[in-house]
């Protein structure tokens, strides 16, 4: 109950912050003062329409061929309208396409594209990172251990865009194994292959961006798993498990991993924000037409409705990830109780 | 009238309010307290070693911290040489810090790993601006290191804590506590983390330093046998209260409170022909959040009766230098 309330408060806070940021941003005010100061340049009916549309004036009356009267909205009017729009997911129209932001987000397939990329990359990174971390902890001091730690440190610290460009250079340009970018080939617009063909081609296009994002994400997970597992394995319950006659596999994956997974859950949630950042870069490098690429372009275009919508959705995702991780934590750790 | 004591506690209380979430406080008004120390009064005489003995959760550590004003009392008074120090500000306490010192349990955590031994020991001197110049400071550090038998001091001064063994580290902690020639020293389980074979050395060293300075010493421990060998008087604590207080011989040989008796009976004896653990009282120390009403020991006491459940027994002097808080012994013993 308390957690739900906290989450709601957090969402309200995020909306408010988002509102303040865009109120303070240059661009809007400048364009409006431009409109107001040079009324002769513009058609007053158009100006009046825009002022009303963007909620700068409550009432606009046209008083002459080049003059009009504006009853300006207060900051509270704008905030309440903004608030209602945000919680009803009414993000307005994109400046670039003049279509509703929600349409550009969903109907264009961007949402699905991003979810595919993120879903594949996170799942693989979590699985590989955890598995290798467990094995590294179990064989601490071995060549496998130091090798996997070194490798994950390298991939963890390399910039994502650099790694992405490197892969494009090697796998796309030199070896020609994978396409250098995009989600689907352009010729699909003319002729789409059968379902199996579609699937295989999609996997081919997904491979490099997913690989980049996985490499960016798995290292931290591996290092953390290794650290928490090392600790769990030195606890007396692991020794008790061995003394009971349990096979080492059971000690590792049942007794130690359940304890070691607690910090992993928190970490996965916390690094979600970073992962979204990584997704923006990866999508841009690989021309992957997802939400990240879209946001990147929107920033260049000063497409405020899109930016506002994306900031809000990213914040919602991070909040949701933390909420879910808290619930998971409660399930995994009996010492924690939520009323 | 004789001098009441270097340090006196009068009706000392320390309640910690339990941390609760913001929303919980909206729902329920009832505040929950951990009664760590609940209305205790005692004093430590000049040049005396007083043992404060109890199990974990008895409030013995909190009492030690209160006396040094490392924690603020919820109620009650602390008198140091007749002066009430229970409400002094940090600035007003500073000159008193020179005279009161503490030695902690863990010699691995109480020393800053990035400081040289010399700096660790010299820090109190620097804070109190005792030494006139650097040379005098070094001289005093050397002298106290010699006193705690870290010789040659020139060599130990330039080491870091991790280069020392546990026993040597605790000697450094002792040196730091005694470098200002304090009048009142609290030692909280100072040897429980050390190897058995070196404990006696550290304890004997502390006793020597205390005696040499005529200081008063509060020795906090869970080990009644060690307290017996160290202390002039012993106070036994249970759930934030003193249940028995008196001269060491009386406490050990003629204990009156059932809890003291139980503690003594639970100490294993290094004599295989005389196995003693037979009648151990059952149960474990209850939570100090909601301590039992009346006598807090009644839940485990083999002699508890209805009065013990309803009435808190006062701490009374049943014979000279022997105080007990128990309804079984509610009037002075007649010999």
């Amino acid at each position: 109950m308390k957690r739900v309330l906290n989450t709601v408060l957090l969402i309200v806070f995020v909306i408010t912050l988002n509102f303040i940021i865009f109120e303070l941003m240059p661009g809007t005010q400048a364009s409006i003062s431009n409109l107001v100061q040079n009324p002769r340049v513009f058609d007053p009916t158009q100006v009046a329409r825009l002022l009303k549309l963007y909620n700068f004036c409550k009432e606009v009356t046209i008083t002459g061929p080049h003059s009009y009267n504006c009853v300006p909205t207060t900051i509270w009017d704008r905030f309440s309208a903004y608030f209602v729009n945000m919680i009803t997911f009414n993000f307005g129209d994109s400046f670039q396409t003049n279509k509703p932001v929600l349409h550009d987000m969903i109907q264009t397939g961007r949402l699905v594209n991003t979810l595919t990329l993120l879903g594949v990359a996170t799942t693989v990174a979590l699985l590989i990172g955890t598995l290798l971390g467990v094995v590294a902890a179990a064989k601490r001091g071995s060549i496998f251990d130091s090798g996997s730690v070194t490798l994950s440190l390298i991939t963890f610290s390399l910039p994502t865009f650099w790694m992405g460009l490197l892969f494009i250079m090697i796998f796309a340009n030199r070896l020609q194994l994978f396409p250098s970018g995009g989600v689907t080939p352009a010729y699909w617009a003319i002729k789409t292959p059968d379902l199996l063909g579609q699937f295989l081609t999609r996997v081919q296009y997904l491979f490099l961006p997913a690989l980049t994002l996985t490499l960016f994400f798995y290292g931290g997970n591996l290092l953390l798993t290794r650290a928490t597992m090392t600790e769990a394995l030195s606890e007396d319950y692991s020794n008790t498990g061995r003394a009971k006659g349990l096979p080492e596999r059971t000690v590792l994956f049942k007794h130690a991993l359940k304890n070691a997974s607690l910090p992993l859950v928190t970490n996965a949630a916390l690094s979600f924000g970073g992962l979204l950042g990584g997704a923006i870069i990866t999508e841009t490098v690989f021309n992957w037409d997802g939400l990240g690429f879209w946001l990147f372009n929107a920033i260049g275009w000063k497409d405020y409705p899109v930016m506002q919508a994306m900031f809000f959705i990213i914040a919602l995702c991070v909040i949701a990830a933390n909420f879910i991780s808290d619930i998971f934590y409660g399930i995994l750790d009996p010492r924690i109780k939520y009323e | 009238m004789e001098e009441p004591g270097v340090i006196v506690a009068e009706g000392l209380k320390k309640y910690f309010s339990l941390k609760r979430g913001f929303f919980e406080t909206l729902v329920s008004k009832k505040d929950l307290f951990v009664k760590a120390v609940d209305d205790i009064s005692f004093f430590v005489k000049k040049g005396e070693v007083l043992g404060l003995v109890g199990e974990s959760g008895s409030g013995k550590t909190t009492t030690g911290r209160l006396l040094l004003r490392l924690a603020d009392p919820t109620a009650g008074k602390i008198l140091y040489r007749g002066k009430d120090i229970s409400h002094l500000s940090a600035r007003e306490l500073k000159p008193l810090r020179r005279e009161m010192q503490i030695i902690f349990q863990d010699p691995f955590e109480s020393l800053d790993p990035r400081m040289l031994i010399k700096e660790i020991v010299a820090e109190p001197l620097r804070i109190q601006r005792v030494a006139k110049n650097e040379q005098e400071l070094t001289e005093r550090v050397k002298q106290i290191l010699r006193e705690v038998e870290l010789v040659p001091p020139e060599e130990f001064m330039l080491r870091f804590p991790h280069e020392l063994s546990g026993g040597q580290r605790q000697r450094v902690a002792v040196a730091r506590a005694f470098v200002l020639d304090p009048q009142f020293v609290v030692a909280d389980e100072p040897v429980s983390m050390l190897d058995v074979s070196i404990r006696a050395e550290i304890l004997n060293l502390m006793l020597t330093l205390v005696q040499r300075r005529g200081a008063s010493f509060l020795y906090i421990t869970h080990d009644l046998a060690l307290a017996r060998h160290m202390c002039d008087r012993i106070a036994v604590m249970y759930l934030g209260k003193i249940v028995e207080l008196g001269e060491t011989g009386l406490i050990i040989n003629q204990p009156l409170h059932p809890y003291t008796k139980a503690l003594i009976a639970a100490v294993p004896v290094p004599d295989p022909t005389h196995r003693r653990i037979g009648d151990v009282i059952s149960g474990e120390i209850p939570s100090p959040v909601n301590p039992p009403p009346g006598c807090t020991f009644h839940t485990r006491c083999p002699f508890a009766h209805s009065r013990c459940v309803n009435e808190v027994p006062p701490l009374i002097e049943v014979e000279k230098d022997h105080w007990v808080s128990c309804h079984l012994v509610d009037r002075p013993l007649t010999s």
Partner: protein
Amino acid sequence: MPVLQLDGLTTNYRTVRGWVKAAEDVSFEVEKGEALGLVGESGCGKTTVALSILKILPSGARIRHGKIIFDGRDLVPLSDSEMRKIRWKGISIVFQGAMNALNPVFKVGDQIVEAIRLHEDVSKGDAMRRAESLLELVGVEPSRVNNYPHEFSGGMRQRALIAMALASNPQLLIADEPGTALDVIVQAQVLKLMRSLKEKLGLSMIMISHDLSIVAEVCEKVAIMYAGHLVEYGSIEAIFKEPLHPYTQGLLGAFPGIKGERRKLTSIPGQPPDLLAPPAACRFHPRCPYVMDICKKEKPLLEKAGSGDHYVACYLY
């Protein structure tokens, strides 16, 4: 025939700086129904000996010499899968209850059931009923099988660990510092329980402790370890009546008694050595008040001395 016989057990740890000589040439016997106290300070190798017997040593540690004869069979050459059958059913171990010896994320009952079902083909329900009666045996309310370890007090955790150790009716029980870090009265309760279980079930036991007086309360025999060596070994009466090794004498002097004359506590000068480079020959010689030339040159062997069942590794005798 003794239940367990150690013959020259030598276990070392490999580190980057070399071999840590944690236990060297340790020999002792535990008869049926007998309790042996293994006493020494932290780092003397007593826990290494326990882990060696079960062969659950951490990676990097190796049994380099010696035999561990349990029930007539040497355990040292056995493979891990063969050892798994001996663990718990043959030899079980109780770790310190104050530590995380019970897994905090599983119910206490499930942890006991796991131990039972690992060695016996019984249904979950039957195993759970056994777990309940085991808890009852050690004085814990049987319904508390459904609790998690954090819902237990320190004393109850220690009791639950003992119950779990008895789950497969082992022939030998190793108790590593039982009751240590618990309150005095609770520790006494645990010792009383161990003693009554030993009598009731005829258990053979190895009790590891740093505290001679705890061992004196439960055991018939005692083995004193110092820096990886066994320095004195024999019946508990003999050793307490007439401690021969200077280290044993020092240890006894360091423990204050609650009864008897108040005396000044004594301690052993110096501190236990670094086992990476322990002193040559008798490892106690740098701290020994009676040190002789030969102590620095040749390791003294454990030989019969004094009266009764009593062995000591010291040139004084």
